């Protein structure tokens, strides 16, 4: 069994009667980076909170590393680190103390060398004696990450780790996440920046109104759902698309300079070779060819789009 996390038929109905999760089934593979996408209120935080023991589930079963998260909560929880969506930190403690507190809370003996390297890696070392309330938002976010990593977890949840974070820190975080993955840590992240998922994730899950509507390998997803297009820049403009090219469903730009061909990248015969040949037969000369794939963002919007 290679999955490190098995989520089976998990449902959650809040006391308010709101069904936040409906029969979620999901296997997270060991060592992968899994991105959970979905609009606001889709249930991402709820799912993470249930796995981490912060919210009780209404139904279902969850195994982490083959162990039941309730019956063997001690073993399970020491495996897991969580960076929550909300920036809730203590105010008056120093950075150093709060990170050491987290490590102790998770049952690990003190290890100053490890905490030191962690703080250095997150550029927090200079701030180790500062009180948390004196830090900027981005710095607090780093402290939350340091706390989550303080006990050397094997599974890391990042609930919107880069919300309100500047470009530089975001790059740093991506780098850090990749390094963690190399060390064998499994990472589950939620994000509203699709480019982030596109950049980082091995697999992607899309959740909408409490239902997991899609789980796919990122590259496959982009191949499968991402439409590809070929743009042909012509030497001389056309008035209309010539009749012999009609079967290709080409679209012509306003200025008549560009022909655009949409094709299915999965299909064995994309039709590109045939198109080029026909263009030659028609005596249409072209100066440039561009092929482009639609981004994950476009795929995401088409999936959840307006159906909130």
């Amino acid at each position, binding site marked *: 069994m290679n999955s490190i996390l098995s989520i089976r038929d998990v449902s959650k109905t*809040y*006391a308010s009667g709101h069904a936040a999760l409906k029969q979620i089934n999901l296997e997270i593979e060991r060592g992968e980076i899994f991105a959970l996408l979905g609009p606001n209120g889709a249930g991402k935080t709820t799912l993470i*909170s249930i796995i*981490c*023991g*912060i*919210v*009780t589930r209404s139904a279902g079963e969850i195994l982490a590393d083959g162990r039941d998260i309730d019956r063997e*909560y*001690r*073993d*399970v*929880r*020491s495996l*897991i680190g*969580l960076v*929550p969506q*909300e920036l*809730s*930190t*203590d*105010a*008056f*403690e120093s950075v150093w*103390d709060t990170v*050491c*507190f*987290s*490590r*102790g*809370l*998770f*049952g*690990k*003996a*003190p290890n100053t060398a490890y905490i030191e390297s962690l703080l250095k890696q997150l550029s927090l070392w200079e701030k180790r004696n500062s009180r948390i309330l004196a830090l900027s938002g981005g710095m607090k976010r780093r402290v939350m990450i340091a*706390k989550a990593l303080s006990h050397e977890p094997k599974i890391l949840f990042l609930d919107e780790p880069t919300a309100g974070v500047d470009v530089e820190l975001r790059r740093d975080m991506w780098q850090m996440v990749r390094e963690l993955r190399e060390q064998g840590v499994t990472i589950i992240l939620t994000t509203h920046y699709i480019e982030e998922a596109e950049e980082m994730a091995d697999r992607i899950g899309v959740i909408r109104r409490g239902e997991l509507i899609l789980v796919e390998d990122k590259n496959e997803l982009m191949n499968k759902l991402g439409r590809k297009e070929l743009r042909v820049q012509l030497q001389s403009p056309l008035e209309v698309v010539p009749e012999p090219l009609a079967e290709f469903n080409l679209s012509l730009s306003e200025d008549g300079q560009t022909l655009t061909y949409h094709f299915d990248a999965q299909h064995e015969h994309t039709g590109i070779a045939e198109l080029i040949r026909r263009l030659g037969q028609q005596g249409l000369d072209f100066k440039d060819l561009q092929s482009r794939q639609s981004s994950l963002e476009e795929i995401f919007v088409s999936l959840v789009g307006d159906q909130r």
Partner: protein
Amino acid sequence: MNIHGILAIYRFEMARTRRTLMQSIISPVLSTSLYFIVFGTAIGSRMGEIDGIEYGAYIIPGLLMLSLLSESISNASFGIFFPKFSGTIYEVLSAPVSPLEVVIGYVGAAATKSVMIGTLILLTARIFVDYSLDHPLWVITFLLLTSITFSMFGFIIGIWADDFQKLQLIPLMVITPLTFLGGAFYSITMLPEPWQSLSLFNPVVYLISGLRWAFYGAADVNLGVSLSMTLLFLFLCLSGTWWIFRTGYKLKQ
């Protein structure tokens, strides 16, 4: 047992005490000292003895109990209320600590602080009033039992309260009146009926009476009864805490 986890919570809470030394330790000791000055030295000298004990000395166990109760409750309730309020409770909930360990950490720290305050009050009282302890071991026992029990009670209040007002409601509206009416300043045998019998429904009577017996060997109610009642409160608070964690009451959605 997650010893590191318990220690982490305990140390965290004790660090909070250290940061707020003035408010958390010095101020209760100072305000209790005022009582000793006013009732012990100034007014006490004009009052007769009660049960053969000088008035200034007679009120020490009651005043000590008053501080212990209110400090234990406010301390422990704030200790757990604040993480709930600020959201940092998520970390404790997601950590591999059992409910028992969480309680040992929070309640242990609050009780430690109460015992420190109690000891300081006893020492300060000696400056103003002459007294001696008949049964020092029993004094320590009651001090510990009360601190632990009411820290646990405070813990429950801290979980129940969802705003600052509720947090202060019980100590202010319940504990203080019960202590004043519970024989802190008089013997309940001095009360006319039906107040004397009604007083027996006041739980604080047993706490004060037990402690007074430990001090001077004389009390309104029998030692066995006081002790049983104290243990009963401890048991009730334990059950309450156990129930909270079992059901996730107000801790988990």
